[in-house]
């Protein structure tokens, strides 16, 4: 079963960066694709790719271009992106539009951790990709990939709305190849992949310790109970000796 994301009106060959997409397909489907689950994947991914809800995370200039995308002239409702959420719990992706400073970095990390899987990140503009024009500043994060994994980079300062839409459609293609049934279904950090748990879980463990592996220790057991246990064990041994 061949997996190739189709976007209406743009042929597959005309997209940039098909190689990395194909690499992801190969990695995800090393063991072959099951016809039934593969078809189900296609159906689910079709739905998910066409209703990507973004978290409005606009810190500076790029955010205005993102707004322009949503408004009359560009109107990205055509692709199903028009719903923006202000709560990370309801969002599918972070449009990180703008510079991330050291004071903002913990907030970005927290918002990412609060999002439900599957979640995606788009880095919009030079600042989010590498620090951009503010690379030499003492208070700017040199690219958000230092903090959270990024799925699509949209270069520009700020990128034009056309570029933002191209980037969103690239993400759509990425969503369309994913494997919902069985296996990881999106890009994870190295830690996440190694442990097979989500980022949220990792953060929880960092703060409160590994809550699953704590041994159960029972104290103040009644004496009669231990006596009984001992006696029964002795009887068992006696019976064994007889046999």
């Amino acid at each position, binding site marked *: 079963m061949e997996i190739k994301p189709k976007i209406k009106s743009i042929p597959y060959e005309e997209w940039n960066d098909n190689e990395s997409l194909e690499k992801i397909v190969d990695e995800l489907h090393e063991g072959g694709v099951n016809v039934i689950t593969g078809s189900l994947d296609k159906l689910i991914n079709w739905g998910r790719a066409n209703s990507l809800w973004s978290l409005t995370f606009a810190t*500076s200039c790029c955010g205005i271009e993102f707004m322009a995308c949503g*408004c009359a002239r560009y109107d990205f409702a055509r692709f199903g992106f028009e719903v923006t959420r*202000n709560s990370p719990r309801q969002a599918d992706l972070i449009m990180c539009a703008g510079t991330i400073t050291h004071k*903002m970095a*913990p907030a970005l990390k927290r918002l990412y951790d609060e999002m439900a899987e599957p979640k995606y990140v788009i880095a919009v503009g030079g600042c989010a990709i590498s620090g951009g*024009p*503010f690379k030499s*500043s003492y*208070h700017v994060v040199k690219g958000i990939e230092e903090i959270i994994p990024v799925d699509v980079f949209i270069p520009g300062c700020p990128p034009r709305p056309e570029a933002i839409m191209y980037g969103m459609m690239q993400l759509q293609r990425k969503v369309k190849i994913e494997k919902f049934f069985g296996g990881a279904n999106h890009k994870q950090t190295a830690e996440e992949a190694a442990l097979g748990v989500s980022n949220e879980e990792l953060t929880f463990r960092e703060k409160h310790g590994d809550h699953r592996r704590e041994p159960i220790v029972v104290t103040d057991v009644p004496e009669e109970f231990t006596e009984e246990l001992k006696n029964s064990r002795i009887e068992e041994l006696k019976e064994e000796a007889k046999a």
Partner: protein
Amino acid sequence: MKLEFLSFEFDKFAQEMQNLKDKKGFDYLVTIVGEDFGDEGLGCVYILENTKTHERCSVKMIAKSQVCGDGIASNGTGDTDGQVLAYLPTVSNIWRVADLLEREVFDFYGIVFLGHPDMRRLFLRSDFKGYPFRKDWAFNDKYTLEDDEEPDYGLEYFLDNDGNLQSKQNRLFGSDDYVINIGPQHPATHGVLRLQTVLDGETVKRIYPHLGYIHRAIEKMWEGMTYPQTLALTDRLNYLGAMQHRHALVGVIEEALGVELTDRIKYIRTIMDELQRLDSHLLYTSCVAQDLGALTGMLYGMRDREHVLNVMEETTGGRLIQNYYRIGGLQDDIDPNFVKNCKDLVKYLRPTIQEYMDIFGDNVITHNRLENCGPMSLEDCINYAVTGPAGRASGWKNDVRKNHPYDMYDKVEWEQCTLTGCDSMDRYLVHINEMYQSLNIIEQLIDNIPEGDFYVKQKPIIKCPEGQWYYSVEGVAGEFGVYLDSRGDKSPYRMKMRPMGLSLVGAFDPMLRGQKIADLIATCAAIDVVIPDIDR
């Protein structure tokens, strides 16, 4: 404006500043510039204006200092022991706007202000080590993803009877205060502003603004750049006022260099500034509508904004960030279609502005929502330095284009829009009226752009002569100025902006005390703050 500093004796400083306000009428504190003067030590430059005569003056004060430890300046924790603490008397009791301005100076230079009730960091995290704008600060760009443990008190410094520096803690919150954080990630704060709001039921008791979530230290970066390099960063401040910001920066450098511009440059800069103002005000009307829940009103404004952007884009090549002005003129000449496009735009926009009023501005819900919302009287506006349309809505004639005319503004006919409602509704209406004025200005200039050079050739390496200058323009939401201290090098010794929004954010607290929390959103929308401009 070339700055000629007044200077006072340290002990008489507070009294002399009071005199400047009371006797000489300097009632508007434009900005406080913290500076590391090198051998002279740390200090501040105060720029003042008399709002009646529009005369300006500047005061330079060098801070005194004491070594902490042995019972001096202990803040209770002892972690400042051994450090040299510079101090100056506060002026925040004379001009209320100094509250945030002094906290900014403290944040970047570590100068404490005696008598200021709340000496906390303003932009940087409270666990930030050192004072980054000092010349001897060792560069460090490490960061942590841990949450910042913010203090719940502000330090107040004072001199005891022996002349030793002491501090005491002022609690920020009462024990049963209900505090909510609005932001930094909130759709109605227009960026990453955080307002820590103390509530009593639904009524606002106090607002503490927390800034710096988009602080990129542009002023510090400038100190390591050549003059032409500094230009690129201004467009990324208030990206809706990119032209004006750059105008102030090239203006101050040109004034220092003594460049004579051709009339063509002046005409084009004036037209571009006004186009930018239209762009910003259109987005403003959209955002007010959106923040109050009228999404249709937003789409109308954004639709027409694209027409303005088209006109600018054909000449400058940029949509949002144009990078058009440079030292000595413009990047390039105007597009052959520019004149025609501008005329078409004016013709198109004039009737459509009425459309926003029809769909949103004249709506009874809008009136009920915005009238008497976030009120501020004329005296308070001056005291808190609420410039721009927000101040003009209280009747303060503060338009820099009229008071300190630059380029063509004194040669065209236009009116300064002032209203007397002092509330959010009038702030909205001032914006609407200003759009008509911008159209008037463009109309008068567009047919008469004279022939000439669009660029006056400059030396390949630009070096400003020694001295201090301050140049301001009317930005989209208030006065935007740049202070330049040059020591004759190819990069500035110190450059500081007067952001438009910092004083507006400082005015939230007096505006909104006793108002409902929903009015906070409406006031925030109607006052037009853009956070990257505040944080720089």
